[in-house]
């Protein structure tokens, strides 16, 4: 299965991936309209300091702790992709606690959100990968 | 309009040739006939022939055929020749006045030998000296033009259709073991006698059909070695290339063909051992003598003919045989005109030379 991989060697810490992610999941067709004067809730986040940066997003584990721990069954695995049904999420945040990689976060409505590889939005392929100027995030089979 | 020498002249054409492998002599009648069915391949602005073995009585002497504009240029040229050559015979080339051929210049023929004292003073071999003399006359003596300079061979050419040119020069009265012929369709000249083909230097003569795209690359390279492309025609530069490769570099006919119409690198890649090395070497060393663009040529030389097409075979050329004779022409019709029963007619592949030699001792 193709997954999103990050290579910190080439990550510039420009944070473009965060904005591309937020835009892709906004459901809108214009980035300015979607993100202007708003706090963004991207599903990928750049971590790091002055010397190193890297993007953090869901690794779509084969044996995911988050799915096991979800109390409402909102998290599930569909064809290897860990997806979240936000209707079912009650915002207990257990998944955020158990994820060893820190890849799950809350959206503006305090509901859990996570990377679903842009398979459910209009981008069709991971927007973070497409917008990365330095190939620091790639979408590939490994 | 500008004449040959003032502007580059490309042209399309008809060529034809015949050779007897046994060295049997043929009159020029048959080769004239071959040009009749290809009449439309010429436009009346040039025709010509080369015959080999036609001067058996003077075969030790270089036969210079020279056009003169007038007697002033003739006197100048003759006095220049006398300084360094022994002239054993000087005469008008016999012609027949016909209405189709007009504006006839003075046409002279000389059988000459370079003085040995001159050769030893200049430390030159005979051929180099003769070639230099021809270049010098053509460059420096205004109104004089040497258009044939080999031994026991001669070029006959004029402005007109080739079949008329043949009659004009009374070629039925000459006998040779090989003949080449050319009908010219130039696109850029009012026609000039010296610009007709064949083009010859020493015993090499070339008839050529095509317009080569490599012309200036070839010209600017070959001019490094003392040649001067006065006429700016393809035939001229190809003749010099052949003279340079064969006489001065000592390449064989096949090797020469491998330079002029070098195999593609992809073909060379597939060769093995020495062949691969040799093709690579020749193509690398003489890269500027590769001739591209459409051409079919027949090279005449003492004792043989070589026919060669460009690498992509962009011009027609067929070969046929009958008994001891081999025929080459732009069209099969021309071969049939010479020998209706010719066999083994084939079109040689691009870049594959067809070499026909007269048996040793038969010429």
């Amino acid at each position: 299965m193709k997954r999103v991989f990050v290579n910190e060697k080439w990550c510039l810490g420009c944070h473009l991936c965060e904005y591309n992610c937020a835009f892709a999941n906004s459901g809108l067709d214009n980035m300015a309209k979607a993100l202007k004067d708003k706090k963004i809730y991207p599903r990928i986040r750049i971590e790091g300091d002055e010397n190193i940066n890297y993007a953090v997003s869901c690794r779509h584990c084969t044996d995911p702790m988050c799915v096991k721990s979800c109390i409402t069954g909102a998290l599930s695995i569909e064809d290897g992709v860990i997806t979240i049904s936000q209707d079912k999420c009650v915002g207990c945040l257990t998944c955020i606690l158990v994820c060893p990689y820190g890849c799950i976060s809350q959206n503006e409505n305090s509901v859990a959100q996570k990377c679903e590889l842009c398979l459910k939005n209009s981008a069709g392929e991971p927007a973070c990968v497409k917008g990365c100027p330095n190939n620091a995030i790639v979408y590939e089979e490994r | 309009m500008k004449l040959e020498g003032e502007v580059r002249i490309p042209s399309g054409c008809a060529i034809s040739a015949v050779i007897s492998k046994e060295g049997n002599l043929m009159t020029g009648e048959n080769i004239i006939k071959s040009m009749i069915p290809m009449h439309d391949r010429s436009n009346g602005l040039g025709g010509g022939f080369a015959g080999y073995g036609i001067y058996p009585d003077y075969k030790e002497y270089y036969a210079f055929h020279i056009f003169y504009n007038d007697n002033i240029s003739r006197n100048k040229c003759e006095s220049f020749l006398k300084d360094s050559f022994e002239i054993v015979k000087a005469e008008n080339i016999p012609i027949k006045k016909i209405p189709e051929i007009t504006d006839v210049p003075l046409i002279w023929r000389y059988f000459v030998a370079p003085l040995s004292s001159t050769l030893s003073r200049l430390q030159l071999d005979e051929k180099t000296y003769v070639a230099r003399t021809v270049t010098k006359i053509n460059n420096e003596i205004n109104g004089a033009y040497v258009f044939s300079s080999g031994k026991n061979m001669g070029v006959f050419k004029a402005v007109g259709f080739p079949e008329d040119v043949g009659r004009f020069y009374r070629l039925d009265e000459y006998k040779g073991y090989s003949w080449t012929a050319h009908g010219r369709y130039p696109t850029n000249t009012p026609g000039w006698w010296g610009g007709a083909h064949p083009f010859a230097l020493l015993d090499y003569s070339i008839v050529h059909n095509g317009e080569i795209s490599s012309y200036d690359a070839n010209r600017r390279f070959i001019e490094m070695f003392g040649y001067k492309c006065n006429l700016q025609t393809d035939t001229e530069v190809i003749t010099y290339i052949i003279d340079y490769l064969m006489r001065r570099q000592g390449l064989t006919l096949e090797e020469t063909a491998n330079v002029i119409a070098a195999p593609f690198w992809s073909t060379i890649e597939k060769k093995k051992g020495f062949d691969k090395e040799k093709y690579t070497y020749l193509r690398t060393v003489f890269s500027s003598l590769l001739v591209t663009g459409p051409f079919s040529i027949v090279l005449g030389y003492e004792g043989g003919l070589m026919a060669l097409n460009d690498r992509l075979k962009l011009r027609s050329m067929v070969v046929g045989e009958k008994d001891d004779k081999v025929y080459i022409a732009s069209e099969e019709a021309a071969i049939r005109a010479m020998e209706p029963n010719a066999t083994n007619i084939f079109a040689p592949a691009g870049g594959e030379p067809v070499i026909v030699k007269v048996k040793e001792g038969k010429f």
Partner: protein
Amino acid sequence: MGIEYIYPEFEVVRNADRCIKCGVCQRQCANEVHKLDEDLNVMLSDEAKCVNCQRCVALCPTRALKIVKSDCRLRENANWSDSTIKEVYKQASSGAVLLSSMGNPNPLPVYWDRILINASQVTNPPIDPLREPMETAVFLGKKPEKIQRDENGKIKCELAPQIKLPVPIMFSAMSYGSISYNAHESLARAARELGICYNTGEGGLHKDFYEYGPNTIVQVASGRFGVHENYLNAGAAIEIKMGQGAKPGIGGHLPGAKIVGDVSKTRMIPEGSDAISPAPHHDIYSIEDLRQLVFSLKEATNYKKPIIVKVAAVHNIAAIASGIARSGADIIAIDGFRGGTGAAPTRIRDNVGIPIELALASVDQRLRDEGIRNNVSLVVGGSIRCASDVVKAIALGADACYIATSALLALGCHLCRTCQTGKCNWGIATQRPELVKRLNPDIGYQRLVNLVTAWQHEIKELMGAMGINSIEALKGNRLMLRGVNMTEKELEIFNISHAGE
């Protein structure tokens, strides 16, 4: 301020309707032009720092940015141009020589644009490169004057060492130090994939790049930085750099600040010391000295490597080239006055040397006049911008072209011409690690491969249109060229006819 104040050259135009204050521009600008003012909640710009490298423009996700030329100009004056006056101000303030980067930007004649190429119509056929073979391979190096045969009459096929190129293009010299590790890696990998050569420049060869040796030309310049026996033997050829088109007659100076880490090791000089290449080679004060260096290098490499001598195109270039051709060199590289540089004194760059087109035309003719054109190959550079420039150069008589500026453009360079600051936002002309990493060689090398491959296609198309199916038949084929907008004298030097003739 006051007398020293010069109004910024550029203005940053930010479309407030589009700006989402993502801060990408701020994070990407090494010149610190952009800044988010948290109190005002707006992005501010310090335009005085902007060099118009377009990094922010290219990365802005909402296309909210553009950089425009400032319209705050001095009073118009045809004699005293804006830039001339400002240069006076700068020098009055600093007392220093002005420095510039990349090639001469002044409106001097670009002869490539005045030369037009022929095509076949009716009398001979154009050739379709998609259907017929079309050959672009060249061999660079000395060719023998006379065929030799062994006792059996077989041709002796040994040639002097050659560089075989599938397409007559090479990447010209750019040193490690003047450009980044990642730029070098991109060039080296692209050269290997394309089967061509890149050139180390005079900064030595980083240990990681020895594996690209067969596609590397190692340079020996006046500073001799990084030169040792293994280095000389590592490449496909050795280039003696006598001069550079952007700065003929002067040496080079890589400031100590850039001599850090691997750059210092590769150059074999202490960290922090200035790398100063003298103007002349101090062992070459004349042509006979050059001959000695050529043969010293041949000795050091067992006569296995062709020796290139690179010179800047200057007034008597034809005589110089003739001398080099007789010095034992296998290849002459000529660099025209529009060639690039990582840093050069502005006055030198903009006023010294001559256009490569004229230099090439006269050198090729001179070597032919002397009958020695086949003894040496000719490589030209100094602003070869596109495939048609290559075709024109070959038709004028070059064997191959050197490209560098176009290669850098492929790597992301936006020709802001401030390489000398070392703050290249595209990760090319810099040694700052956080900037160097902006050039990912995986991307860079592929773009270089794409560029040369695209040019090769175009060269084939142009050749095919001329009815030429091998690049050899194009070399020196000046009949394929016509001039427009040229004087009689220019046409005479190019030895071409005017269009319509």
